[in-house]
């Protein structure tokens, strides 16, 4: 019989570059969803694009343990909602977007289980497209390890947006494999407070010519919060005319907050256009002055600017799928914004 291992043993150690700033121990021994061996294999082979094998996944539309999935109707969002005390591990789900189809997916993680580990594998077929929004608003005592894989076939298109506002500590890997003429957009934001620590590990691997990827991650950090941006654009051989951009923007609202930002490139084709960069700033004095000159007090002005910073992501949140209370908390309530 196989010896049962805990994830603490399975997860690579801090010696691994990609786990350098974030080590999470999650006990998976009591989960039926997981096979320790497969998990170990998966986590150890994370340095390149390696989605989990298909047989390992339950088909999303057939339902996943502890995950409520609302089936798509035309033009509507597929809603993946996990909540409640139920299980410690959320498990995995696979979503296939068939040829020529366009899906919209909203995944909302608000469960109160202390620790969670989950993986999503999104396969976008030739010419298909998907728009995916992941909202994480867990309790502030929770930890998570999240994985979103996007496998884009020729001419496929995917946009993945995330917003992390909850959890105490977490690592979120978003990896895409981008085929010829396919395009992947990643726009994410972390709004962290107290001692929250969120590690974003974003990789785009280009495997075909004239492919496109565009990654932007915004951080707003208060108190003693910590954000990590571990970005990688990898362009394999024979991918001419590829465009790949990567940017990390951080708004520091406290002297005790920290950001570790590592935008990286690995390029094996000559004829490509790539950029990577990071910026760290505090609130813009001239923007604040402008608001104040129109009668808006300093505190409200600062709030407006902070909210504005993550707007590029939050403006795409399917508001109608979350409660009014949460809309208010995230400052996306209709009457606050619409005109």
């Amino acid at each position, binding site marked *: 019989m196989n010896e049962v291992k805990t994830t603490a043993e399975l997860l690579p150690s801090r010696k691994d570059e990609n786990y350098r700033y974030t080590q999470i121990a999650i006990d998976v021994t009591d989960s039926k969803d997981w096979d320790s061996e497969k998990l170990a294999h998966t986590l150890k082979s994370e340095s390149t694009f390696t989605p989990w094998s298909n047989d390992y996944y339950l088909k999303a539309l057939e339902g996943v343990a502890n995950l409520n999935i609302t089936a798509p109707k035309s033009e509507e969002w597929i809603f993946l909602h996990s909540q409640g005390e139920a299980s410690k591990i959320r498990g995995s789900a696979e979503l296939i977007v068939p040829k020529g189809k366009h899906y919209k997916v909203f995944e909302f993680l608000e469960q109160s289980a202390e620790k969670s580990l989950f993986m999503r594998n999104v396969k976008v077929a030739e010419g298909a497209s998907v728009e995916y929004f992941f909202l994480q608003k867990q309790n502030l005592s929770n930890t998570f390890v999240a994985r979103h894989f996007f496998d884009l076939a020729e001419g496929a298109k995917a946009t993945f947006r995330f917003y992390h506002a909850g959890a105490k500590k977490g690592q979120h890997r978003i990896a895409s494999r981008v085929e010829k003429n396919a395009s992947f957009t990643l726009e994410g934001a972390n709004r962290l407070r107290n001692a929250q620590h969120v590690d974003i590990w974003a990789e785009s691997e280009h495997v075909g010519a004239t492919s496109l990827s565009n990654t932007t991650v915004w951080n707003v950090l208060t108190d003693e919060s910590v954000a990590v941006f571990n970005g990688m654009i990898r362009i394999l051989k024979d991918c001419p005319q590829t465009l790949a951009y990567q940017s990390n923007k951080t708004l520091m609202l406290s002297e005790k907050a920290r950001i570790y930002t590592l935008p990286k490139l690995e390029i094996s084709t000559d004829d490509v256009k790539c950029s990577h960069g990071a910026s760290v700033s505090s609130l*813009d*004095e*001239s*923007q604040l*002055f*402008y*608001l*104040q*000159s*129109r*009668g*808006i*007090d*300093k505190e*409200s*002005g600062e709030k*407006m*600017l902070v*909210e*504005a*910073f*993550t*707007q*590029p992501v939050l403006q795409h949140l399917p508001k109608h799928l979350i409660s009014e209370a949460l809309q208010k908390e995230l400052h996306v309530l209709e*009457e*606050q*914004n*619409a*005109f």
Partner: protein
Amino acid sequence: MNLFEVKNLSVSVEDKEIIKNFSLEIKPGEVHAIMGKNGSGKTTLSMALMGHPSYEVTSGKVLLAGEDITELETEEKAKKGLFLGMQYPVAIPGVSVGNFLRVSLKNIWGDKYSPLEIRKKIKEEAEKMKVPSEFLSRSLNDGFSGGEKKKLETLQLALLQPRFAIMDETDSGLDIDALKSVAEKMQSLRTQERAFLIITHYQRLLNYLKPDKVHVMIAGKIVKTGGPELALELEEKGYEGVVPGSLK
């Protein structure tokens, strides 16, 4: 009584004195214009009057309707009825024009109007000024042309209805038609209870908005004051011609 008064104001930027012992008196209903070469301190003056933290008032006083507002926070000055139409309105991506106007008016007006009424007023005024309605949902001053930004500044002037407005080069970046509509809007707001300080490089705005007084500013000081004819004279002769030695 003066509606707006500046008494012996000195302003420094990064410890360099830009405005030196500057004084100005403006009566209700008056329009004053300040003209001056680039770098003469016009924008420094306007920023300091509004209370920008990078512009330090080292001495002197600013009075609005007799009340000393020198030390007030910028937002308090705005609530008292001071307005600054900025030369370079800063872009604020993520804050929509409509939302910004709504929050601004709520702060200025307090509970005088309901949110619905405020919204209605913004829409009506925007329509009157031919500001396209889609502008209201776009990010503030972001991706707008220079002229469009100035039009938005004027829209704010019209909505906020300040007692005293400083318009810093509102005419720059405007095409001929836009200049006319902005100037006419300002002219329509000219009442016996309100006054304006217009900072400009050109005569053309003053054709529509005939000033009571024109001041020439050089090196942080007013060196000459006259009637509207002074602006014409400047246009014709240049600063050196009107104020000999100003090229130094």
